[in-house]
C-alpha cells in the first residue's frame, strides 16, 4: 500500500495489484455450465507442471499455456467471449473505473468470540470469576434450543471475501500493475480476483472499457503510465490554491 495525492491535495491510500501471466483457459457455454451466463476460465500466476498429476494439467495443455497456480471463472455475455490462450493485461482496466476485488482473507486460526464476532466480553474486575472473554448467554429460555448459525468461537479467516466499488487510480502498462483505492482482502503477495464492479452506482463510471479486452498485439499503443484525471502526477509542480 502506498499513498497517492489528488490535485486538490487530498491523500488516498492505494494498493498495488500485479497482473502476472494471466491467460484465458477455456470457454464454457451457458448450456454446458447450466447457469444463466457463459463462463470464461482464466488462469493466474505461472507454476511448474511437475508437481500435479497429468489430468490436472489437461486444461492448460489444451489452451497451450504453462500450468497456472489459480483458476477463476468469470461470467461473461456472449459478445465478450475471448479465444482460449489469449493473454490478459493490466490495460484491460482503465483509470476511473470501479472494481471488485476477491481474495482469501488472512487466516487467524481458531479464535474466540471477541475477536471473531466483536462481542464485548465481561468486565476485568468487580468480582468476575473466570469470565472475561466468554460469549455469555447463547439463547433464551423460551426457544429451548440454540439456533443454527449462532455466533460462536471457531476458525477465523482463510475465506474468500470481496471488497466492492474500489476505484482504479492508475495503470502501469510496462509492469502490468493496477493501483486500486483502499485496502484489499488477503496478505501481501497473495492471489486476487479483480472484476468490473457490479454496484449500481458504479455503472456510469464503467462505460467504454476496452472491449472484449486489451490486445497487446493490436494497433493501440498505450503510454507506460495511465493516470486518472484527478491524480496529482509528480511531473507537475506543487499544488497551489487560488
Amino acid at each position: 500500500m502506498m499513498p497517492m495525492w489528488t490535485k486538490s491535495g487530498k491523500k488516498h491510500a492505494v494498493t498495488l495489484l500485479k497482473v502476472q501471466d494471466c491467460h484465458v483457459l477455456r470457454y464454457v457455454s451457458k448450456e454446458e455450465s447450466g447457469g444463466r451466463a457463459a463462463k470464461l476460465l482464466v488462469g493466474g500466476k505461472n507454476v511448474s507442471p511437475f508437481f500435479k498429476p497429468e489430468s490436472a494439467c489437461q486444461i492448460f495443455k489444451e489452451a497451450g499455456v504453462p500450468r497456472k497456480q489459480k483458476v477463476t471463472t468469470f461470467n461473461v455475455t456472449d459478445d465478450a467471449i475471448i479465444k482460449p490462450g489469449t493473454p490478459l493485461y493490466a490495460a484491460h482496466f482503465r483509470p476511473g473505473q470501479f472494481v471488485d476485488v476477491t481474495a482469501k482473507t488472512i487466516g487467524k486460526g481458531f479464535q474466540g468470540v471477541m475477536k471473531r464476532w466483536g462481542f464485548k466480553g465481561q468486565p476485568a474486575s468487580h468480582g468476575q470469576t473466570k469470565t472475561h472473554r466468554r460469549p455469555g448467554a447463547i439463547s433464551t429460555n423460551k426457544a429451548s434450543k440454540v439456533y443454527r448459525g449462532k455466533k460462536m468461537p471457531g476458525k477465523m479467516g482463510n475465506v474468500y471475501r470481496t471488497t466492492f466499488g474500489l476505484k482504479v487510480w492508475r495503470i502501469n502498462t510496462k509492469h502490468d500493475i493496477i493501483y486500486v483505492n483502499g485496502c484489499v482482502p488477503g496478505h501481501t503477495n497473495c492471489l486476487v480476483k479483480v472484476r468490473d464492479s457490479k454496484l449500481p452506482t458504479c455503472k456510469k463510471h464503467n462505460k467504454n472499457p476496452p472491449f472484449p479486452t486489451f490486445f497487446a498485439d493490436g494497433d493501440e499503443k498505450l503510454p507506460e503510465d495511465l493516470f486518472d484525471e484527478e491524480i496529482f502526477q509528480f511531473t507537475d509542480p506543487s499544488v497551489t490554491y487560488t
Partner: protein
Amino acid sequence: SRAGGDGKPEKFQPPPKPVIIDKQKQRAERRFLSPEFIPPRGRTDPLKYYMERKDMIQRRKVFNIPEFYVGHVLAVTTADPYANNKTNRFVGICIQRGGKGLGATFVLRNVIEDQGVEICYELYSPRIQAIEVLKLEKRLDDNLMYLRDALPEYSTFDVNMKPVSRLDHEEVPVNKLQVRMKPKPWSKRWERPKFNIKGIKFELPESKMKEAQKWSQPWLEFDMLREYDTSKIEEKIWKEVNEELKK
C-alpha cells in the same frame, strides 16, 4: 654510484617530479541517501519499492528536497486553502524522521508564544512548496522527542531566522549539547536504557539512574536475528538514485 663502473658517465636522470595530491578532490564526495529510500525488512516484492522509488525520484527532480538530519532547523512553506496568502510557513527543529517510501514524514517542533507546537509534514506531499534548511547541526540522538520534557528555551527558534551560511563538502557539525529537563514526571522515562539518549543532562540522583539500569537488555546487541545490514542495499539504491537524478 655503481661498483665497477662502465667508464662512460651515466646519463643525467632528473629527479622525479613531485606528485601534487589535491586534498580537496580527494575528500570523498559525501554520500547521503535519504533514509526513506531504504526498504524495511519484510516479505514485500521488491518491485513495489522500485515503483515507489521511481515516483520519489520523479518528485525530487521537480522539487528540491534538501539533505537534512534530525536536529536541523527547517522552514517549510505549504499551500493552505484557508490562509491569507494561501501559503503557510512554519519554522522548527526536526525531532523525528519516520516512514519509508512515499509516505515518509518529518516532525518539526517550535515554541510559539509559550505554546509548544509540533507539525508532522509528509516529504512527498504535493502541498509542500518549499523546504529551506536554516541551521545545520546534527545532535547526539536520532530522535529528539525528549525536547517535549526539556526546558522550553531548547525548542524555541526565531520564526524570522536567517539561514546560516555554510560551505558544501564539509562534515555536518554535531552539536554535543546536553539539554536540561523540566522536573519529573516526563511523558516517557527518558533515563531508561531502551531510549539510549545521550543528549540529556540528567540531574537525577544516582539511585534513580541505577534503578533505571534494571531495564537494560544487554543481550539485544548480540541478537543476530535483529541484524539488518543495509550497506549493500544502500550502495545499489544510491547508484540508481544518482543516475536517475543526473538525467
